[in-house]
Protein backbone atom coordinates (compact mmCIF):
# COMPACT_ATOMS: atom_id res chain seq x y z
CA UNK A 1 0.00 0.00 0.00
CA UNK A 2 1.26 3.46 -0.88
CA UNK A 3 2.05 5.51 2.21
CA UNK A 4 0.16 8.76 2.64
CA UNK A 5 1.73 11.71 4.47
CA UNK A 6 0.09 14.94 5.59
CA UNK A 7 2.39 18.00 5.75
CA UNK A 8 1.14 20.81 8.01
CA UNK A 9 3.10 24.07 7.62
CA UNK A 10 1.81 27.63 7.35
CA UNK A 11 4.65 28.60 4.98
CA UNK A 12 3.37 27.58 1.57
CA UNK A 13 6.78 27.53 -0.11
CA UNK A 14 8.28 25.33 2.59
CA UNK A 15 5.29 23.00 2.45
CA UNK A 16 5.67 22.65 -1.31
CA UNK A 17 9.39 21.92 -0.98
CA UNK A 18 8.75 19.29 1.70
CA UNK A 19 6.04 17.60 -0.37
CA UNK A 20 8.19 17.66 -3.52
CA UNK A 21 11.17 16.31 -1.54
CA UNK A 22 9.12 13.41 -0.15
CA UNK A 23 7.48 12.59 -3.49
CA UNK A 24 10.72 12.93 -5.47
CA UNK A 25 12.60 10.32 -3.47
CA UNK A 26 9.81 7.85 -2.60
CA UNK A 27 6.55 6.54 -3.97
CA UNK A 28 4.63 8.13 -1.10
CA UNK A 29 1.61 10.34 -1.65
CA UNK A 30 1.47 13.67 0.17
CA UNK A 31 -1.13 16.25 1.03
CA UNK A 32 -0.58 19.68 2.51
CA UNK A 33 -2.37 21.91 5.03
CA UNK A 34 -1.61 25.60 5.55
CA UNK A 35 -2.82 25.92 9.13
CA UNK A 36 -3.28 23.82 12.23
CA UNK A 37 -7.05 23.85 11.81
CA UNK A 38 -6.89 22.79 8.15
CA UNK A 39 -4.48 20.02 9.16
CA UNK A 40 -6.84 18.73 11.87
CA UNK A 41 -9.78 18.77 9.46
CA UNK A 42 -7.84 16.82 6.84
CA UNK A 43 -6.44 14.33 9.37
CA UNK A 44 -9.92 13.61 10.70
CA UNK A 45 -11.50 13.02 7.31
CA UNK A 46 -8.72 11.29 5.35
CA UNK A 47 -6.55 8.33 6.26
CA UNK A 48 -2.84 9.21 6.70
CA UNK A 49 0.08 7.00 7.68
CA UNK A 50 2.03 9.87 9.22
CA UNK A 51 1.90 13.62 9.80
CA UNK A 52 4.80 16.05 9.37
CA UNK A 53 3.99 19.00 11.59
CA UNK A 54 5.60 22.46 11.75
CA UNK A 55 5.97 23.74 15.32
CA UNK A 56 5.91 27.51 14.97
CA UNK A 57 2.66 28.50 13.33
CA UNK A 58 0.36 31.44 14.09
CA UNK A 59 -3.05 30.95 15.77
CA UNK A 60 -2.63 27.26 16.61
CA UNK A 61 0.98 26.14 16.90
CA UNK A 62 2.28 22.64 16.22
CA UNK A 63 2.15 21.55 19.85
CA UNK A 64 -1.50 22.54 20.15
CA UNK A 65 -2.25 20.69 16.92
CA UNK A 66 -0.46 17.64 18.30
CA UNK A 67 -2.53 17.69 21.50
CA UNK A 68 -5.73 17.92 19.45
CA UNK A 69 -4.60 15.01 17.28
CA UNK A 70 -3.93 12.94 20.40
CA UNK A 71 -7.29 13.74 21.97
CA UNK A 72 -9.26 12.46 18.98
CA UNK A 73 -9.87 8.73 18.55
CA UNK A 74 -9.60 8.97 14.77
CA UNK A 75 -6.19 10.67 14.82
CA UNK A 76 -4.49 9.64 18.06
CA UNK A 77 -2.70 6.67 16.52
CA UNK A 78 -1.17 8.54 13.55
CA UNK A 79 2.59 8.98 14.15
CA UNK A 80 3.65 12.64 14.19
CA UNK A 81 7.08 13.98 13.19
CA UNK A 82 7.76 17.57 14.22
CA UNK A 83 9.54 20.06 11.97
CA UNK A 84 11.36 22.59 14.08
CA UNK A 85 14.43 24.78 14.34
CA UNK A 86 14.54 23.78 18.01
CA UNK A 87 16.61 20.60 17.98
CA UNK A 88 18.67 20.99 21.15
CA UNK A 89 18.79 17.78 23.23
CA UNK A 90 16.57 19.47 25.85
CA UNK A 91 13.97 20.40 23.19
CA UNK A 92 14.12 16.88 21.74
CA UNK A 93 13.64 15.44 25.21
CA UNK A 94 10.60 17.65 25.82
CA UNK A 95 8.94 16.84 22.48
CA UNK A 96 9.58 13.10 22.68
CA UNK A 97 8.27 13.19 26.27
CA UNK A 98 5.01 14.57 24.89
CA UNK A 99 4.60 11.50 22.70
CA UNK A 100 5.92 12.84 19.40
CA UNK A 101 7.46 10.08 17.29
CA UNK A 102 10.44 12.11 16.07
CA UNK A 103 11.94 15.45 15.13
CA UNK A 104 13.40 16.83 11.92
CA UNK A 105 15.45 20.03 12.12
CA UNK A 106 14.97 23.11 9.97
CA UNK A 107 16.54 23.90 7.55
CA UNK A 108 16.42 20.34 6.19
CA UNK A 109 18.20 18.60 3.33
CA UNK A 110 15.52 17.84 0.69
CA UNK A 111 17.46 14.81 -0.54
CA UNK A 112 17.54 13.27 2.94
CA UNK A 113 14.24 14.24 4.52
CA UNK A 114 12.33 11.22 3.13
CA UNK A 115 15.03 8.91 4.48
CA UNK A 116 14.91 10.64 7.87
CA UNK A 117 11.12 10.27 8.03
CA UNK A 118 11.34 6.58 7.07
CA UNK A 119 13.98 5.95 9.74
CA UNK A 120 11.95 7.67 12.44
CA UNK A 121 8.84 5.68 11.51
CA UNK A 122 10.68 2.38 10.89
CA UNK A 123 9.54 2.20 7.29
CA UNK A 124 11.55 0.56 4.51
CA UNK A 125 12.10 2.62 1.40
Amino acid at each position, binding site marked *: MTKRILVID*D*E*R*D*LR*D*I*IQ*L*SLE*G*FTDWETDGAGSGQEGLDKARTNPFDAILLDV*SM*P*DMDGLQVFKQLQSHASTCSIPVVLLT*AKTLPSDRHQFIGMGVTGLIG*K*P*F*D*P*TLIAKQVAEILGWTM
Partner: protein
Amino acid sequence: MNYVHPDDREPLLSTFQKHARGETPFYTCEYRLGGKNGQYKWVLARGKVLWDETGQPIRAVGSLADISDRKQVEEALKQALQQLTFHIENTPLATVIWDSQARVQRWSKKAEEIFGWTEAEVLGKELYDWQFVFEEDVNQVNQEFQRLQNGRGGICCNRNYRKDGAVISVEWFNSALMDEAGNLISILSLAQDVSDRHAIERMKNEFVSVVSHELRTPLAAIRGSLGLLQSSKYDDQPDKFDHVLRIALRNSDRLIRLVNDILDLERLESGKVELAMELCQVADLAKQAVEAVQSIATQSSITIEVRAVPSVVRAAADAVVQTLTNLLGNAIKFSPTESTVWLAIESKQRPQPHILFSIKDQGRGIPADKLNLIFGRFQQVDVSDSRQKGGTGLGLAICKNIVQQHGGQIWVESQLGKGSTFFFTLPCGEPPYDQTDFGD
Protein backbone atom coordinates in the same frame (compact mmCIF):
# COMPACT_ATOMS: atom_id res chain seq x y z
CA MET B 1 35.94 83.01 84.84
CA ASN B 2 38.33 85.04 82.70
CA TYR B 3 40.06 81.87 81.64
CA VAL B 4 36.85 80.30 80.37
CA HIS B 5 36.23 80.50 76.61
CA PRO B 6 33.78 83.40 76.02
CA ASP B 7 31.28 81.07 74.29
CA ASP B 8 31.23 78.72 77.29
CA ARG B 9 30.88 81.30 80.10
CA GLU B 10 27.11 81.64 79.93
CA PRO B 11 26.33 77.87 79.96
CA LEU B 12 28.84 77.33 82.78
CA LEU B 13 27.36 80.10 84.88
CA SER B 14 23.79 78.95 84.36
CA THR B 15 24.67 75.34 85.25
CA PHE B 16 26.34 76.51 88.41
CA GLN B 17 23.49 78.85 89.40
CA LYS B 18 20.96 76.08 88.87
CA HIS B 19 22.89 73.91 91.25
CA ALA B 20 23.39 76.77 93.71
CA ARG B 21 19.61 77.23 93.83
CA GLY B 22 19.38 73.60 94.84
CA GLU B 23 17.76 72.43 91.62
CA THR B 24 20.41 69.80 90.93
CA PRO B 25 22.29 67.53 93.38
CA PHE B 26 25.56 68.00 91.43
CA TYR B 27 26.83 70.31 88.81
CA THR B 28 28.55 68.95 85.73
CA CYS B 29 29.69 70.97 82.74
CA GLU B 30 32.07 70.75 79.83
CA TYR B 31 33.85 73.92 78.75
CA ARG B 32 37.05 75.29 77.28
CA LEU B 33 39.60 76.61 79.72
CA GLY B 34 42.45 78.87 78.63
CA GLY B 35 46.02 77.96 79.49
CA LYS B 36 49.09 80.10 79.95
CA ASN B 37 50.01 79.90 76.29
CA GLY B 38 46.55 81.21 75.31
CA GLN B 39 45.45 77.80 74.05
CA TYR B 40 42.18 76.34 75.24
CA LYS B 41 41.66 72.85 76.56
CA TRP B 42 38.37 71.07 76.98
CA VAL B 43 37.70 70.25 80.62
CA LEU B 44 34.93 68.51 82.48
CA ALA B 45 33.99 70.11 85.78
CA ARG B 46 31.95 68.14 88.26
CA GLY B 47 31.16 68.94 91.86
CA LYS B 48 28.82 69.90 94.62
CA VAL B 49 28.27 72.95 96.80
CA LEU B 50 28.33 72.50 100.53
CA TRP B 51 25.86 74.50 102.68
CA ASP B 52 25.82 75.31 106.39
CA GLU B 53 22.81 74.76 108.66
CA THR B 54 21.30 78.14 107.72
CA GLY B 55 21.38 77.27 104.07
CA GLN B 56 24.36 79.44 103.21
CA PRO B 57 26.82 77.98 100.75
CA ILE B 58 30.17 77.38 102.42
CA ARG B 59 32.29 76.13 99.57
CA ALA B 60 32.30 73.92 96.52
CA VAL B 61 34.08 70.62 96.21
CA GLY B 62 34.67 69.01 92.88
CA SER B 63 37.05 67.94 90.17
CA LEU B 64 38.32 69.28 86.89
CA ALA B 65 39.39 66.80 84.22
CA ASP B 66 41.19 67.40 80.93
CA ILE B 67 38.90 65.88 78.25
CA SER B 68 40.65 67.30 75.14
CA ASP B 69 41.37 63.85 73.72
CA ARG B 70 37.77 62.71 74.07
CA LYS B 71 36.53 65.94 72.50
CA GLN B 72 38.85 65.39 69.51
CA VAL B 73 37.52 61.89 68.98
CA GLU B 74 33.96 63.15 69.26
CA GLU B 75 34.66 65.84 66.69
CA ALA B 76 36.20 63.30 64.29
CA LEU B 77 33.22 61.00 64.76
CA LYS B 78 30.83 63.85 64.11
CA GLN B 79 32.64 64.73 60.90
CA ALA B 80 32.69 61.08 59.73
CA LEU B 81 28.96 60.80 60.37
CA GLN B 82 28.28 64.01 58.48
CA GLN B 83 30.35 62.74 55.59
CA LEU B 84 28.52 59.42 55.53
CA THR B 85 25.11 61.08 55.77
CA PHE B 86 26.00 63.39 52.91
CA HIS B 87 26.99 60.47 50.70
CA ILE B 88 23.92 58.41 51.63
CA GLU B 89 21.61 61.29 50.75
CA ASN B 90 23.41 62.17 47.54
CA THR B 91 24.20 58.83 45.94
CA PRO B 92 22.05 58.05 42.88
CA LEU B 93 21.20 54.73 44.56
CA ALA B 94 18.47 54.49 47.15
CA THR B 95 19.92 53.72 50.58
CA VAL B 96 17.95 51.68 53.08
CA ILE B 97 19.28 50.41 56.40
CA TRP B 98 17.44 47.54 58.10
CA ASP B 99 17.94 46.28 61.63
CA SER B 100 18.37 42.62 62.49
CA GLN B 101 14.58 42.13 62.40
CA ALA B 102 14.36 43.66 58.90
CA ARG B 103 12.86 46.87 60.25
CA VAL B 104 13.62 50.11 58.41
CA GLN B 105 16.18 52.21 60.27
CA ARG B 106 17.02 54.59 57.50
CA TRP B 107 15.33 55.46 54.20
CA SER B 108 17.17 57.98 52.03
CA LYS B 109 15.70 60.75 49.88
CA LYS B 110 16.48 58.69 46.78
CA ALA B 111 14.54 55.76 48.29
CA GLU B 112 11.60 58.12 48.73
CA GLU B 113 11.99 59.11 45.09
CA ILE B 114 12.17 55.53 43.73
CA PHE B 115 9.51 53.91 45.92
CA GLY B 116 7.26 56.85 46.78
CA TRP B 117 7.05 56.34 50.56
CA THR B 118 8.66 58.96 52.81
CA GLU B 119 11.05 57.95 55.55
CA ALA B 120 8.44 58.88 58.16
CA GLU B 121 5.96 56.45 56.56
CA VAL B 122 8.21 53.39 56.73
CA LEU B 123 10.61 54.03 59.61
CA GLY B 124 10.48 51.13 62.10
CA LYS B 125 8.27 49.05 59.82
CA GLU B 126 9.22 45.47 59.09
CA LEU B 127 9.88 44.43 55.46
CA TYR B 128 6.49 42.70 55.17
CA ASP B 129 4.51 45.21 57.27
CA TRP B 130 3.53 47.10 54.15
CA GLN B 131 2.95 46.14 50.54
CA PHE B 132 6.50 46.50 49.31
CA VAL B 133 7.80 43.17 47.97
CA PHE B 134 6.04 41.82 44.86
CA GLU B 135 4.23 38.60 45.90
CA GLU B 136 5.90 36.32 43.33
CA ASP B 137 9.34 37.41 44.51
CA VAL B 138 8.79 36.88 48.25
CA ASN B 139 10.68 33.57 48.27
CA GLN B 140 13.64 35.10 46.53
CA VAL B 141 13.75 38.01 48.98
CA ASN B 142 13.47 35.62 51.94
CA GLN B 143 16.41 33.62 50.64
CA GLU B 144 18.48 36.79 50.31
CA PHE B 145 17.54 37.78 53.89
CA GLN B 146 18.64 34.36 55.12
CA ARG B 147 21.97 34.73 53.35
CA LEU B 148 22.39 38.15 54.99
CA GLN B 149 21.57 36.70 58.41
CA ASN B 150 24.55 34.41 57.85
CA GLY B 151 26.70 37.39 57.03
CA ARG B 152 26.73 36.89 53.31
CA GLY B 153 25.67 39.92 51.32
CA GLY B 154 24.95 39.98 47.65
CA ILE B 155 23.01 41.31 44.74
CA CYS B 156 19.32 40.55 44.57
CA CYS B 157 17.12 41.56 41.66
CA ASN B 158 13.43 41.44 42.43
CA ARG B 159 10.22 43.31 41.84
CA ASN B 160 8.86 45.84 44.33
CA TYR B 161 5.72 47.87 44.63
CA ARG B 162 5.82 51.62 44.53
CA LYS B 163 3.50 53.58 46.77
CA ASP B 164 1.28 54.29 43.75
CA GLY B 165 0.86 50.53 43.23
CA ALA B 166 3.14 50.28 40.18
CA VAL B 167 5.46 47.25 40.05
CA ILE B 168 9.12 48.04 39.36
CA SER B 169 12.21 45.89 38.89
CA VAL B 170 14.85 46.75 41.47
CA GLU B 171 18.45 45.68 41.84
CA TRP B 172 19.46 45.52 45.52
CA PHE B 173 23.10 45.54 46.64
CA ASN B 174 23.14 44.27 50.20
CA SER B 175 25.76 43.96 52.94
CA ALA B 176 25.37 42.58 56.45
CA LEU B 177 27.01 43.91 59.60
CA MET B 178 27.59 41.15 62.18
CA ASP B 179 28.61 41.23 65.84
CA GLU B 180 31.50 39.15 67.18
CA ALA B 181 29.20 36.26 68.01
CA GLY B 182 28.06 36.16 64.38
CA ASN B 183 24.66 37.73 64.94
CA LEU B 184 23.22 40.16 62.43
CA ILE B 185 23.31 43.77 63.57
CA SER B 186 22.08 45.56 60.49
CA ILE B 187 21.80 45.43 56.71
CA LEU B 188 22.78 48.17 54.32
CA SER B 189 20.89 48.03 51.02
CA LEU B 190 21.67 50.16 48.00
CA ALA B 191 18.91 49.92 45.41
CA GLN B 192 18.42 50.92 41.81
CA ASP B 193 15.27 50.95 39.66
CA VAL B 194 16.15 48.82 36.61
CA SER B 195 12.64 48.61 35.10
CA ASP B 196 13.62 50.49 31.93
CA ARG B 197 16.68 48.33 31.40
CA HIS B 198 14.60 45.18 31.83
CA ALA B 199 11.94 46.40 29.42
CA ILE B 200 14.59 47.08 26.77
CA GLU B 201 16.19 43.66 27.32
CA ARG B 202 12.80 41.99 26.99
CA MET B 203 12.07 43.85 23.77
CA LYS B 204 15.47 42.93 22.36
CA ASN B 205 14.95 39.26 23.18
CA GLU B 206 11.52 39.24 21.58
CA PHE B 207 12.91 41.00 18.52
CA VAL B 208 15.76 38.49 18.20
CA SER B 209 13.40 35.54 18.48
CA VAL B 210 11.00 36.93 15.86
CA VAL B 211 13.84 37.92 13.55
CA SER B 212 15.46 34.51 13.80
CA HIS B 213 12.19 32.86 12.79
CA GLU B 214 11.65 35.36 9.97
CA LEU B 215 15.19 34.80 8.68
CA ARG B 216 15.19 31.02 9.02
CA THR B 217 11.97 30.51 7.09
CA PRO B 218 13.12 31.91 3.72
CA LEU B 219 16.54 30.37 4.27
CA ALA B 220 14.99 26.93 4.77
CA ALA B 221 12.96 27.41 1.58
CA ILE B 222 16.04 28.50 -0.41
CA ARG B 223 18.16 25.67 0.97
CA GLY B 224 15.39 23.16 0.26
CA SER B 225 14.66 24.30 -3.28
CA LEU B 226 18.32 24.49 -4.31
CA GLY B 227 18.91 21.00 -2.89
CA LEU B 228 15.96 19.67 -4.86
CA LEU B 229 17.17 21.31 -8.09
CA GLN B 230 20.66 19.89 -7.59
CA SER B 231 19.29 16.38 -7.02
CA SER B 232 18.03 16.35 -10.66
CA LYS B 233 14.80 14.66 -9.50
CA TYR B 234 12.67 17.13 -11.41
CA ASP B 235 14.90 17.74 -14.43
CA ASP B 236 12.40 16.05 -16.74
CA GLN B 237 9.34 17.73 -15.18
CA PRO B 238 9.64 21.37 -16.33
CA ASP B 239 6.53 22.55 -14.42
CA LYS B 240 7.80 21.31 -11.09
CA PHE B 241 11.38 22.37 -11.86
CA ASP B 242 10.14 25.87 -12.61
CA HIS B 243 7.99 25.91 -9.47
CA VAL B 244 10.97 25.00 -7.28
CA LEU B 245 13.15 27.60 -9.00
CA ARG B 246 10.53 30.28 -8.36
CA ILE B 247 10.36 29.33 -4.71
CA ALA B 248 14.12 29.84 -4.43
CA LEU B 249 13.92 33.23 -6.13
CA ARG B 250 10.88 34.42 -4.21
CA ASN B 251 12.46 33.53 -0.89
CA SER B 252 15.77 35.16 -1.83
CA ASP B 253 13.83 38.35 -2.50
CA ARG B 254 12.01 38.01 0.79
CA LEU B 255 15.30 37.54 2.61
CA ILE B 256 16.82 40.58 0.88
CA ARG B 257 13.83 42.74 1.84
CA LEU B 258 13.97 41.55 5.42
CA VAL B 259 17.71 42.07 5.80
CA ASN B 260 17.43 45.54 4.22
CA ASP B 261 14.57 46.50 6.53
CA ILE B 262 16.33 45.22 9.63
CA LEU B 263 19.49 47.12 8.72
CA ASP B 264 17.51 50.27 7.87
CA LEU B 265 15.72 50.15 11.17
CA GLU B 266 18.88 49.52 13.16
CA ARG B 267 20.62 52.35 11.34
CA LEU B 268 17.73 54.72 12.05
CA GLU B 269 17.31 53.68 15.65
CA SER B 270 20.97 53.73 16.56
CA GLY B 271 21.05 57.33 15.38
CA LYS B 272 24.48 56.67 13.93
CA VAL B 273 23.50 57.95 10.52
CA GLU B 274 22.09 61.42 10.48
CA LEU B 275 19.54 62.10 7.80
CA ALA B 276 20.88 64.60 5.30
CA MET B 277 18.30 67.37 5.26
CA GLU B 278 17.76 69.44 2.14
CA LEU B 279 15.04 71.60 0.70
CA CYS B 280 12.68 69.45 -1.35
CA GLN B 281 9.68 70.13 -3.53
CA VAL B 282 6.98 67.91 -2.03
CA ALA B 283 5.50 67.25 -5.47
CA ASP B 284 8.84 65.74 -6.54
CA LEU B 285 8.86 63.43 -3.54
CA ALA B 286 5.34 62.31 -4.38
CA LYS B 287 6.27 61.74 -8.02
CA GLN B 288 9.25 59.54 -7.13
CA ALA B 289 7.21 57.46 -4.68
CA VAL B 290 4.35 56.95 -7.15
CA GLU B 291 6.82 55.83 -9.83
CA ALA B 292 8.24 53.26 -7.44
CA VAL B 293 4.86 51.63 -6.80
CA GLN B 294 3.26 52.18 -10.21
CA SER B 295 3.98 48.68 -11.49
CA ILE B 296 2.36 46.86 -8.56
CA ALA B 297 -0.62 49.24 -8.81
CA THR B 298 -0.99 48.47 -12.51
CA GLN B 299 -0.85 44.73 -11.82
CA SER B 300 -3.99 45.05 -9.67
CA SER B 301 -5.56 47.74 -11.89
CA ILE B 302 -5.38 50.26 -9.08
CA THR B 303 -5.44 53.97 -9.85
CA ILE B 304 -3.25 56.32 -7.84
CA GLU B 305 -4.60 59.85 -7.60
CA VAL B 306 -2.17 62.49 -6.44
CA ARG B 307 -3.08 65.97 -5.19
CA ALA B 308 -0.07 67.94 -4.01
CA VAL B 309 0.14 71.66 -3.24
CA PRO B 310 3.28 73.36 -4.53
CA SER B 311 5.38 73.72 -1.42
CA VAL B 312 8.83 72.94 -0.12
CA VAL B 313 9.98 71.23 3.00
CA ARG B 314 13.35 70.69 4.61
CA ALA B 315 13.71 66.92 4.74
CA ALA B 316 15.83 63.91 3.85
CA ALA B 317 14.42 63.33 0.38
CA ASP B 318 15.29 59.61 0.11
CA ALA B 319 13.84 58.85 3.52
CA VAL B 320 10.58 60.68 2.79
CA VAL B 321 10.28 58.90 -0.56
CA GLN B 322 10.88 55.61 1.28
CA THR B 323 8.10 56.48 3.74
CA LEU B 324 5.69 57.43 0.96
CA THR B 325 6.61 54.32 -1.06
CA ASN B 326 6.01 52.14 1.96
CA LEU B 327 2.63 53.67 2.76
CA LEU B 328 1.52 53.67 -0.90
CA GLY B 329 2.73 50.08 -1.28
CA ASN B 330 0.69 49.02 1.77
CA ALA B 331 -2.37 50.88 0.48
CA ILE B 332 -2.09 49.12 -2.88
CA LYS B 333 -1.47 45.68 -1.35
CA PHE B 334 -4.57 45.92 0.80
CA SER B 335 -6.85 47.49 -1.85
CA PRO B 336 -9.36 45.53 -3.92
CA THR B 337 -8.59 45.42 -7.63
CA GLU B 338 -9.80 48.32 -9.77
CA SER B 339 -10.05 50.63 -6.77
CA THR B 340 -8.31 53.95 -6.12
CA VAL B 341 -5.53 55.00 -3.75
CA TRP B 342 -5.30 58.72 -2.99
CA LEU B 343 -2.16 60.60 -2.04
CA ALA B 344 -2.78 64.14 -0.80
CA ILE B 345 -0.17 66.65 0.31
CA GLU B 346 -1.38 69.81 1.99
CA SER B 347 0.26 72.79 3.62
CA LYS B 348 -1.08 73.53 7.12
CA GLN B 349 -0.36 76.52 9.37
CA ARG B 350 -1.78 75.32 12.70
CA PRO B 351 -0.65 74.63 15.31
CA GLN B 352 2.77 75.02 13.67
CA PRO B 353 3.47 75.33 9.95
CA HIS B 354 3.71 71.81 8.57
CA ILE B 355 3.11 69.66 5.51
CA LEU B 356 0.41 67.01 5.94
CA PHE B 357 0.69 63.85 3.83
CA SER B 358 -2.27 61.47 3.65
CA ILE B 359 -2.55 58.12 1.90
CA LYS B 360 -6.08 56.79 1.62
CA ASP B 361 -7.23 53.37 0.44
CA GLN B 362 -10.48 51.42 0.08
CA GLY B 363 -9.06 48.27 1.62
CA ARG B 364 -10.25 46.03 4.43
CA GLY B 365 -9.44 48.53 7.20
CA ILE B 366 -7.69 48.04 10.51
CA PRO B 367 -9.40 46.90 13.74
CA ALA B 368 -9.45 49.66 16.40
CA ASP B 369 -7.33 47.65 18.84
CA LYS B 370 -4.51 47.37 16.28
CA LEU B 371 -4.34 51.03 15.28
CA ASN B 372 -1.52 51.88 17.67
CA LEU B 373 0.23 48.52 17.49
CA ILE B 374 0.87 48.41 13.76
CA PHE B 375 3.70 50.93 13.97
CA GLY B 376 5.66 48.46 16.12
CA ARG B 377 8.07 45.91 14.74
CA PHE B 378 6.50 42.72 13.36
CA GLN B 379 3.01 43.85 14.31
CA GLN B 380 0.99 43.13 11.22
CA VAL B 381 -2.77 43.12 11.59
CA ASP B 382 -2.73 39.49 10.51
CA VAL B 383 0.38 37.35 11.02
CA SER B 384 -0.08 35.73 7.64
CA ASP B 385 0.23 39.14 5.93
CA SER B 386 4.01 38.92 5.62
CA ARG B 387 3.67 35.87 3.38
CA GLN B 388 0.58 36.80 1.42
CA LYS B 389 1.40 40.46 0.95
CA GLY B 390 5.16 40.19 0.75
CA GLY B 391 5.84 42.57 3.64
CA THR B 392 8.46 42.15 6.30
CA GLY B 393 6.48 43.53 9.22
CA LEU B 394 9.02 46.31 9.64
CA GLY B 395 7.79 48.83 7.06
CA LEU B 396 5.62 50.96 9.37
CA ALA B 397 8.24 50.86 12.13
CA ILE B 398 10.71 52.31 9.61
CA CYS B 399 8.19 54.98 8.50
CA LYS B 400 7.54 55.97 12.10
CA ASN B 401 11.24 56.27 12.75
CA ILE B 402 11.86 58.42 9.69
CA VAL B 403 8.93 60.73 10.45
CA GLN B 404 9.97 61.11 14.08
CA GLN B 405 13.53 61.93 13.08
CA HIS B 406 12.06 64.79 11.07
CA GLY B 407 10.15 65.97 14.13
CA GLY B 408 6.84 64.97 12.57
CA GLN B 409 4.01 62.67 13.58
CA ILE B 410 2.46 59.60 12.00
CA TRP B 411 -0.95 58.06 12.66
CA VAL B 412 -3.76 56.17 11.00
CA GLU B 413 -7.52 56.46 10.86
CA SER B 414 -9.50 53.47 9.69
CA GLN B 415 -12.94 51.99 9.30
CA LEU B 416 -13.23 48.22 9.06
CA GLY B 417 -14.35 47.16 5.61
CA LYS B 418 -14.21 50.71 4.24
CA GLY B 419 -10.52 51.59 4.17
CA SER B 420 -7.69 53.29 5.98
CA THR B 421 -5.97 56.66 5.78
CA PHE B 422 -2.39 57.00 6.95
CA PHE B 423 -1.26 60.52 7.86
CA PHE B 424 2.14 61.95 8.57
CA THR B 425 3.44 65.47 9.04
CA LEU B 426 6.75 67.15 8.36
CA PRO B 427 7.28 70.44 10.16
CA CYS B 428 8.29 73.55 8.22
CA GLY B 429 10.31 75.15 10.96
CA GLU B 430 11.92 77.82 8.78
CA PRO B 431 10.45 80.92 7.13
CA PRO B 432 8.68 80.47 3.79
CA TYR B 433 11.09 79.89 0.95
CA ASP B 434 11.11 81.74 -2.29
CA GLN B 435 9.18 79.39 -4.55
CA THR B 436 10.98 80.70 -7.62
CA ASP B 437 14.19 79.01 -6.46
CA PHE B 438 12.69 75.69 -7.30
CA GLY B 439 11.90 75.54 -10.95
CA ASP B 440 10.95 72.27 -12.61
